[in-house]
């Protein structure tokens, strides 16, 4: 089975071209392998790869994603730009000031404003906001605006969160800006770590015997991930409300408009209706690396096979549902 393309919440693949050929003993160029892999994964109608949020640099080649693993949160005084694996030369496009993000540091609430920030394609306006960016790909600049408010300031990192004496791990001080060569991990190690060890970790965490079942939860547009222990929930309803609480700060303005009164008695199908109605849907990556809609399968089956969760834009998830059903049928 093709290796899952590890996407973090903004859809960057950590697999390098070297590593992707690991699972294919053929001598195909790795780029072909990765491309084929992506195609096997997704139904033609839904090219998640293209619609996923990612940060690229102005002028960087958006489609060629396997080469670019960096994000740019360009608020730093130096030209802190991309974590592109190759050529620093690709990365630099002048000092960070060029990024010209609208609005300075803001509150979390700002993220929720203007869902346009996160629409991946077709809107084009996102690109237009950053005319100074040059030929930013349609994916590129928009995502950055959502991030910039969290980028570390030039002065010492925002301290409020960590000043509480450590008892409350609380909210992270700032989203990390990915910078070339930081943290200082050798390329070889980076490439090797991209698949196996991560999978190991997830598998290990998924082991029943361990008494906890931690999975990462990412949300499109949120600056950081959360981790939840699936064992602490008994059904989809509990999971959903927990996630709702966790990520509520990012969904102001989204769910509100649909008004979610009477969350009690939320059945599995109701969850789906709800999520379908709102801006976001809850999806998960299963053991095979496929992304499925949450709620299709019985809870136990779900916790058995879920490796990570992702709250994605409803528009992105359109193709998922039928496939999930099919897969379920095939399984049963």
């Amino acid at each position, binding site marked *: 089975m093709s290796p899952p393309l590890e996407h973090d919440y903004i859809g960057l693949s950590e697999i390098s071209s*070297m590593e992707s050929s690991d699972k294919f003993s053929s001598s195909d160029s790795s780029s072909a392998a990765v491309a084929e892999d992506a195609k096997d994964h997704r139904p033609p109608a839904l090219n998640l790869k293209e619609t996923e949020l990612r940060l690229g640099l102005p002028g960087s080649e958006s489609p060629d994603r396997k080469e670019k693993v960096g994000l740019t949160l360009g608020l730093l005084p130096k030209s802190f730009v991309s974590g592109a694996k190759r050529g620093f030369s690709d990365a630099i496009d002048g000092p960070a000031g060029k990024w010209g993000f609208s609005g300075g540091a803001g509150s979390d609430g700002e993220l929720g404003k203007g869902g346009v920030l996160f629409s991946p394609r077709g809107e084009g306006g996102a690109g237009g906001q950053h005319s100074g960016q040059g030929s930013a790909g349609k994916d590129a600049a928009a995502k950055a605006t959502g991030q910039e408010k969290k980028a570390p300031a030039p002065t010492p990192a925002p301290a409020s969160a960590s000043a509480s004496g450590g008892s409350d791990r609380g909210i992270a001080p700032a989203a990390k800006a990915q*910078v070339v060569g930081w943290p200082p991990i050798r390329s070889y190690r980076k490439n090797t770590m991209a698949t*196996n060890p991560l999978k190991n970790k997830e598998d290990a965490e998924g082991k029943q015997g*361990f008494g906890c079942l931690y999975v990462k939860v990412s949300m499109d547009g949120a600056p950081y991930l959360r981790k939840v222990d699936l064992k602490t929930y008994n059904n989809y309803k509990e999971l959903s409300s927990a996630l709702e609480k966790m990520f509520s700060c990012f969904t102001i303005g989204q769910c509100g408009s649909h008004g979610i009164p009477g969350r009690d008695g939320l059945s599995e199908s109701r969850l789906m209706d709800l999520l379908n109605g709102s801006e976001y849907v809850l999806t998960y990556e299963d053991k095979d690396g496929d992304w499925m809609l949450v709620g299709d399968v019985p809870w136990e089956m779900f916790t058995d096979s879920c490796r990570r969760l992702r709250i994605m834009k409803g528009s992105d998830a359109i193709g998922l549902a039928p496939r999930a059903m099919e897969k379920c049928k095939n399984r049963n």
Partner: protein
Amino acid sequence: MAIKKQKELDIEEKSPENRILSFPDEVLERVLVFVKTHKDRSAVSLVCRDWYNAERWSRTHVFIGNCYSVSPEMVARRFPNIRSVTLKGKPRFSDFNLVPPNWGSDIHPWLVVFASAYPFLEELRLKRMTVTDESLDFLARSFPEFKALSLVSCDGFSTDGLASITTYCRNLTELDIQESGIEDLGGSWLNFPESFTSLEALNFANLHSEVNFDALERLVARCKSLKVLKVNKHVMLEQLRRLLVRAPQLTELGTGPFSQDHKLRSHIDLESAFSNCKNLNTLSGLWEVSSMYLPALFPACTNLTFLNLSYTALQSAELAKLLQKCPLLRRLWVLDTVEDKGLEAVASSCHLLQELRVFPADPFEQEVIMEGGGNGVTESGFVAVSEGCPNLHYVLYFCHQMTNAAVATVVRNCPNFTHFRLCIMDMRRPDYLTNEPMDEAFGAVVKTCSKLRRLAVSGLLTDRAFEYIGTYAKNLETLSVAFAGSSDRGMQCVLEGCPKLRKLEIRDCPFGNAALLSGLERYESMRSLWMSACNLTMNGCQLLARKMPRLNVEVIKEDESDDMHAEKVYVYRSVAGPRRDAPPFVLTL
């Protein structure tokens, strides 16, 4: 060893009053054979002309820490009898993609000179050099006595180049390509002739494609002196078992995946294969460990001194079980999946531990907030290890949070650190409890650890940290700095205060021309200086170049936009003059 005598004596050297030693040069050369380290040899060569000559005739191994500091012709002229060469190329920050491709450090010009000057060359050990297949082929055909090839973090070659080595090097004892960026064109490179039996060390752990296992098995079976075998991820457990059965004499083993293999009939077979390996002192590989198979290893662990689990996503419980079987462990590399609990297990089981490296499993992950679960290691794991392992002298620790107090405690428990590399992965992160800069942490390190030779700093640091370093770190040789400091003063303190400094690498710090120029007197006694994304300008670099003609001041210029700013600067001493192979983006001032 043929010692040629070249009589270029001055008359005055013959007269007894002027000779430092009154026995013949032949004797001196015989004695000098026992002087091994290159530092000692350099010292010997400075005593007087006789000693210089005796030393250069008797030297068989040359170490060149910066391939551009000297030319191959100069090396060949001075040392006529070299059998073994160690060469290092690119600046260390190239490991982190800070150096553009095609920067240089090509081995080929060296090989061409060596082919005529040292036809009996036996060993070549390269680090961060560019090596092409043509070069490997040239090497294999030009040196009939060639024995050992080690390529660490090199690039530019493919498995075709390896095939040349295995085909033509009849006397090969060592082939090690660890962590090199190799283009993998398939596994047929392992084609040693059937008559070939001299192999002692083989490391192909980083190759991605499958090698011909039958060929490997036959090779292992007939090479009775094989001591080091590190295979890649395609060698499954049953295959590993077969190899172990043929080579119980191994001292260093790198396994493939340690997980489900349908071909393995039973755990007992595997365990018995391991129990026959009584001489194992080093174990690595262990990709994808399944706890079901881990116990098969236990019989072989009793004599382990080095355990490299840095590619193994082990949990704390599994690590604890494994470590209980390794009482003699001196060096341990792990992933931070073991978390603080795993480090506590280290503290309770590994009292002889001298070196610990904790690598991050998810270095590029956006910050993850845990609901009660762990994520990586913290300061408490660090403190725990220091309490249980008083002999610790080498640490490399990647974490997301640290406190000044914890570091102070660690060095109080382990004052013998020679290498202290702490990487708080979040840039400019202060002490997460007090919110202060991490200055006091590194202050404690340099005040307490007088033997400190290598230091890497991180977290939020002001000039104060560097004042401490300059004041106390009198044995410091290598310093790595990133996203730290407040002004030129920081760098100045280090340059003025650390007399033994040899390598200084700095990125993204507010150090400018004044800081750069304050080290004018220092750079000739250092191997190199790297500064990237600091506040240097072309003018400042040009001034340095003008004042210090025996330094190569190179600026890497990748974009045309800002002509004044010197984005990446590499300064190093050289007797070979400016590089002749510099690519267009490297400007030598």
